[in-house]
C-alpha cells in the first residue's frame, strides 16, 4: 500500500507505538525512517522537515553510483532554507528517480504537539511530497476532524487500518495529569504571579496587604474584610468598599483568594498558598 502511494493510518484502542516501530524496523529496512512522537507537547515542524531533507539527501548520495555532476549541489545548507524550498526539494523536482523515499512514522498525529491546524497543514504538505511516505497512528475519537477534504483525499491519502492493540499507553499518557492527584495543588506561586502582574498596581497592593497579614498571622483563619478595608483605605489604595469588592472579586475569579467563615461569624479572606510560596510570590511581584 505504501508503494501504491497511500498513507497508512492506524487506529483503534491501545498504544500503537511499538507496533509501528516494529513495522518500520522490519518491513521498511530499504528506506530511511524518521519517527515523530506526536504525543509530546511541542514539536518544531520545521526541524522535522529539515531532517527529512537531509535524510533524503544522504540516501540519494549513497545510492547514486556516479556521485559527480548528476546531482545538483545544494545551494544552501538545508537548515537555512525556507519551508517552501524544503518542500520543493522533498517533492522531487531536484531528483529524478522515484524510487527513493523516506518513510515518516508519526505516533499520534492527533497528539497535543501536532494538533493545531497550521502544523497539520504542514504535515499534509509533507505527506503530499513525492519522496515521502507517511505512516501514522491516531488515538482520539475525533481525530479526523483535524483534516479537511483536501488534506484527506489529495494529501494524506489515508488507507485506514483498525488495529486495537489494547496495549497500555505508557509513554503517551506520561504527560497527562493524573486524575486523583488533583489540579488544585498545581496552582503555584508562578501562576499567581502571572495573574497578579496583569492587574493594576492598586490591586497588587491590596493583594500584598493580604499576603503580609497572612504571613504575620499564620495561625489565623484569614483576614477579616473590615481590617482589609481599613488598611487599604489608609494607604489610599481604595476609596470605597465597592472598589475593594471589585478587586476581591477579581482575585476570587482567578482563585488567588478564597473566603471562609471566621469563628465569630465574619467572612475572612485568605490566600490558598503555603507561606514559603507566598513569600516567594511577594518577592516576585515586588521586583
Amino acid at each position, binding site marked *: 500500500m505504501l508503494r501504491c502511494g497511500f498513507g497508512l493510518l492506524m487506529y*483503534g484502542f491501545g498504544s500503537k507505538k511499538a507496533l509501528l516501530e516494529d513495522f518500520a524496523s522490519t518491513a521498511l529496512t530499504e*528506506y530511511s525512517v524518521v519517527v515523530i*512522537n506526536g504525543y509530546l507537547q511541542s514539536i*518544531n515542524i520545521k*526541524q522535522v522537515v529539515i531532517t527529512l531533507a537531509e535524510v533524503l539527501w544522504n540516501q540519494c548520495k549513497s545510492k547514486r553510483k556516479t556521485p559527480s555532476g548528476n546531482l545538483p549541489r545544494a545551494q544552501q545548507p538545508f537548515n537555512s532554507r525556507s519551508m517552501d524550498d524544503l518542500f520543493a526539494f522533498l517533492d522531487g523536482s531536484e531528483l529524478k528517480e522515484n524510487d527513493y523515499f523516506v518513510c515518516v512514522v508519526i505516533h499520534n498525529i492527533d497528539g497535543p504537539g501536532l494538533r493545531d491546524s497550521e502544523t497539520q497543514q504542514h504535515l499534509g504538505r509533507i505527506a503530499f511530497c513525492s519522496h515521502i511516505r507517511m505512516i501514522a497512528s491516531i*488515538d482520539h475519537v475525533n481525530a479526523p476532524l483535524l483534516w479537511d477534504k483536501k488534506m484527506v483525499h489529495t494529501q494524506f491519502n489515508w488507507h485506514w487500518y483498525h488495529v486495537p492493540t489494547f496495549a497500555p499507553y505508557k509513554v503517551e499518557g506520561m504527560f497527562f495529569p493524573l486524575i486523583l492527584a488533583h489540579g488544585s495543588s498545581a496552582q503555584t506561586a508562578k501562576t499567581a504571579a502571572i495573574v497578579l502582574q496583569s492587574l493594576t498596581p492598586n490591586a497588587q497592593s491590596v493583594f500584598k496587604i493580604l499576603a503580609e497579614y497572612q504571613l504575620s498571622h499564620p495561625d489565623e483563619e484569614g483576614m477579616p474584610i473590615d481590617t482589609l478595608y481599613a488598611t487599604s483605605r489608609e494607604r489610599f489604595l481604595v476609596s470605597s468598599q465597592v472598589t475593594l469588592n471589585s478587586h476581591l472579586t477579581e482575585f476570587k475569579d482567578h482563585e488567588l483568594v478564597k473566603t471562609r467563615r471566621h469563628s465569630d461569624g465574619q467572612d475572612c479572606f485568605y490566600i490558598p498558598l503555603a507561606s514559603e510560596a507566598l513569600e516567594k510570590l511577594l518577592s516576585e511581584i515586588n521586583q
Partner: protein
Amino acid sequence: MMAPSAAAADSSPPSSSETTENHLQPFFVLHEASSRKPERTSTGTVKTRKKIDFSPSKLKNVEKPDVEIAKEGGDEGYGNLRMDAFEVVWSKIESTIKDVLRDINANVFNEIHQWVRDSFSTIRSFGMLTFREATQAFPIVTDASSKQLFTGLVLTKNMEFVDDLLTFEELGRHLKSQGCHVANLSSLDFMAKSGIGGCLRSLLRQFLVAPLDAADISILASWYREQGNYNNPVVVIVDDIERCCGSVLSDFILMFSEWVLKIPVILIMGVTTTLDAPRNILLSNVLQCLCPCMFTLGTPSERMDAIIEAVLVRQCSGFSISHKVAVFMRNYFVRQDGTITSFIRALKIACSQHFSMEPLSIILKGFFLEEDRQGLQDGLLLQAMFKHAFDLPSYGRNKMGEENVESFAHCLSELKRSQTRWRTVVLCLYEAGKGHRIQLLDLLCEALNPALYSSRTSGTCTKVDKGHGVSPSNNFPVQQHPIMRKGRLICQAVQKVRDLPIAQLYKLLKRWEELTVDINEIHAKLKELLYVIKLENGRSSRQDMADSSKRPVSRSQLNIEKESRAVNEKAASLIECMVRDHMQPVECSPLHEIVCFKNVETLQLALIGDPRRRIQIDLLESYKILRCSCCSRSGHSLLPSLHDTSILYNLAQEHGDHINLHDWYQSFKSKVCSSRSKGKHKSKQSPLPKKRKDMNEPDKPCEASIQARFCKAVTELQITGLIRMPTKRRPDFVQRVAFGL
C-alpha cells in the same frame, strides 16, 4: 514536562539502544536506508521477458510448463509481479481519468485563453511605457480606466473545491503552454497571518524561480521588463476565493490594479458558490477595480459520468468492480463524501486491494491492456496459477469440464467477449437515457447486478413480439423480467426509446450503430431498423409536402404517426433483447474473479475509518477482540479480568454526561475486587500493576494499586478523547464526550 530540544534531536540520530530517550524526543531517525537497492524493478523485468502467447491457436506450446516454476515462484517474486501489474493498470486508469477531465474542460480552457489574450491587448492599448517610466520603481497611473484589473470568475458549480484543484492546475498548464506566465495561488497564500507578503512571496517564487527573501512588487516589475517577457500576459490563478482571507485578497487586488500597466496581471478566480461571492468578501472600492468575466465549468455529475464511462464502462484497463462494490461506492459518493476525488481514491484502493489479494490479477496486465498481443507473461507460475484458477468458485460453479490450459484460455476469452458485449449494451442504454437524468453511475449499479440477470435468464421470458401494439405500457410483458420492472433505470431508458420523436430516434440509432460495431448480430438488426426509418422519413417528407398544400390534419398524418410509433417499438424491443441476451454482468461469468474486485468489506474498512465508533466498540466489546477464555463465555457481565479501561468505560455508560469521580471509582473498585472473593479467574493480558497484585493473590488488591489502575484507565480514556478532565468549577466530575455509537 519535557524540554523540547529540537536542535539537539535533528542533527545526530541517537543510537537505537537508547530507546527511552527516543520516546522523549520530538522526532528522531529510526534508521537510514539500507544500502541494498530495492529489487522490485529487476525481478519484474526478468520475469516479464518471458511471454507466452495465450491466444488459443498457440496454446499448444505451453502444454508442458517450465520446470522452474517450483524453484522461482516464491511469494516475493509473485508479489512484485502483481505490484508491477497494479502499476500498469492503475497508471492506465489514472491517465484515462486525466484525459477525460481535460477533454471536459477543453472548451472552457480555450475560451479562457481567448479572453486572456483579448484582455492583454486591451491593457496594451492603454499605451506603451517610455523607458524612464518603465524603469521607475513605483507604479504609474494615468486614469481610472487603466486601473481596471481583468478578472475571470470561474464558476465551478461544485461546493467541493477539492475536485477543482486539479482543474485549476490543468488550466495553469494550458495557459502556460500558450505562452502566458502563470502562477497558481491557493487560499493558503492568502492567510491573514502572513498577510500580503505571503502571496507576493509565493508569486515571486513561481515566477522568478530563484528564492528571494524580500517580498517587493517592484522586483516582479523589473523581472517582467527584463526577461523579454514583454509580449505575454501574467496570469494569476486563485483556486478558491471563498477560502481566502478577504482583506488580504483586497490588498492584493488593489496593489496589482495600480501596477497593472507595468505588470499586465490578469486574475482568474475560482468561485464555488454563486456570483455574489466576490461581493461578499471584497470591499466595494476593490470591486470597482475588477473587470469581471464569467466562465462556467461542467457540473460534478457530468464529470462523474464521463469518468465512469471511460474507466468502468468503456474498455480501459480490464479492471472491473462487482455489483456490491459499485453500490457501496455510489452510496459513498452520493451520501457521504460527494467528491470525485474521493471516488477515484476509492477506486484506487479497490484496485490495489484487488491486486494484493487476487493472485491471478497479474493476468490483467497483459490480457486486457495489450489487445494485439494478448501476451500473458510468466511461464514460471503457470501451473500454480492454473490450479488457483480452477479452484475459483465461479469456475466450479459453471462446471467447465476438464481443467486444462485450453479451457482456461477459452474461459478467459469468453469472459472478455461477454465483457465487451456488456459494455456495449450499457453504453447503448446510457445513450438512450442521456438528457433524461439517468446517471451512468446508477445505471452501472443496476447493470452490474447479478441477481437481476440470473432471474432474467431463468425466468420464463418470451421473446418480445416485434410488431406489438401501439400502446406499450399495458400489454407489454414488462412484469416478466425483474430488470424491466418499473422504476428500474434500465426500464426507464427503454421507455425513453419508446417515447422519442422520430428524428431523435434516428440519431440515437446512429449512435448505437457506432457503438455496436463489434457485435455483428445487433449491428445487422440496427442497420435494418435504420433502413426502415430512412424509408419512412423519405415517405413522410414527401407526403408532408403533398399534404401541406391541402388539409392541415389528414388521415395520412395519423398513419405516419402510427408507423413511427411502430419503429419506436421496434427499437425498444431491440434494446430489450440486447439487455436480455448480451448484458451479462461480470459476476456471472466464469473466472470473473481475475478481473473483478468483490470484497466490499475490506474496501470499506480501508476507505472509511470510523474511529469514533470503532474505538468505543473496542472498549465496550473488548472481549470480542481479545478473545480471552474468561470473558467470552460470560457475555455481557463485566468481569474483573477485563481490561481496566474497558471496565471503566463500560461503567461510564451508566452515567449521564457528568460522571462523579468518587462513584465511578467506587464501582470500579467493587468490580475489580468482586471476584477476588470467588477466587477463580485467570490472569489475562493486563497492565502491569495487576500482575504484581496477582502474585500476592490471597488478599485483596491494595487500595493504592487500584487507585493507580483507575488513574491509568482514566488517562487512557482521556487520550482517546472519550472523557474530558474535570473543570475548576466541578472538580469532582469528569465529562463524557461521546454518546452513542
